[in-house]
């Protein structure tokens, strides 16, 4: 007698529980963006660590650099691969942005996709954005 109610209820329940799956199936999902290497970064072909380690650990390195520069006044970083860098996010040619010139396509592309909102740029300035 209550069979129909139970079955409709079950169907609605299953649909609701699986909603993330079918929602993803009917909507188009964006593929994860690849950070684009432009300008200097494209030609230089050298970074602090290799590509995959940078992807995973760049935030830890930035944190380490910050402490080193502010606290110990050590501003030169000679990486394990022998290249040396100016420990700076955005100042000078030998800094992060000095090589990865396009912040929007390099930093923001992934950060936006993964809903990461680092507050670096509340103080640090992108030289390209200053007119």
């Amino acid at each position, binding site marked *: 007698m209550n069979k129909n109610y139970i079955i409709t209820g079950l169907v609605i329940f299953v649909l609701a529980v699986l909603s993330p799956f079918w929602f993803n199936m009917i909507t188009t999902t964006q593929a994860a963006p690849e950070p684009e290497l432009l300008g200097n970064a494209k030609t230089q072909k050298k970074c*602090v660590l290799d590509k995959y380690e940078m992807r995973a650990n760049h935030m830890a390195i930035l944190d380490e650099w*910050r402490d*080193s520069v*502010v*606290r*110990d*006044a*050590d*501003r*030169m*970083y*000679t*990486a*394990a*691969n*022998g290249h040396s860098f100016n*420990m700076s996010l*955005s*100042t*000078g040619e030998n800094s992060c942005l000095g090589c990865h010139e396009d912040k929007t396509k390099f930093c923001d592309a992934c950060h936006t996709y993964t809903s990461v909102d680092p*507050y670096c740029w*509340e*103080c*640090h*300035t992108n*030289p390209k954005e*200053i007119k």
Partner: protein
Amino acid sequence: MMEKSRRSFLKVAGIAAIGLGAAPAMNFAASDSHGTALAVKSKNEAVLSAHRWGMVIDTNKITDEVVENIVAACHKAHNVPDFNHEVDEEKFPNTRPVNHKQEVKWIWEEEFHNSFPDKEDEFLAEKFHNLPFLVTCNHCKNAPCVKACPTQATFKREDGIVLMDFHRCIGCRFCMAACPYGSRSFNFRDPRPFIEETNPNFPTRTKGVVEKCNLCAERLAKGEQPHCVEASEGAIVVGDLEDPESEVRVLLNENYTIRRKQSLGTEPSVYYVM
């Protein structure tokens, strides 16, 4: 039967333990043979260093014009906001009106009786009443701001500079209350709309952090003199207070100098030649 199985169990366990330890040991040996270089952090070769940085300001050489140049040079280079600057409405729409009590300053002009309240003699020489005095962070030896800071955002660097890590500042303003010289300013609002020309070589600050003079740590690191020294036409000298041969020590030896609120025991590192 019991004994035998126990013995063989221990044998197997021993071999297994060696086996388990072998892989990490092999890896260690393998990585060692490649010679993993470690990253090294170092200073620039041109760096200017000292055991304890200090500053000597010759008040005889400070004129209104020099003061203006020094303040302008410092504030421009460090992106210090000027709240008299007209906001660009296109770039920063809906900026709320300015409260002029909330100024931000790193180095500024002060009258004698405000700079040296404990040295106001009854019949003080007339000239001192009108002289412009430049005041800034004193980079004290016993800095009270450093003791007050609950997050160690303000700290004393090995070379005596009292420095701020803006990343760590939580904006509690204990340091401002602790500083007897009023050398610290709080960012009550986003300073960016009030920076006339942003210097890309130095970050701006954000709302909710305290800021002050950093003795141009970023310039000393490159082997350059601080901005105030460059703009001062010889009125300001910075150097090592602990090196008896240094220029500042020679000046201190040859001239009568005073320091601000010395009786408080903070041991300021800024000296004024009278």
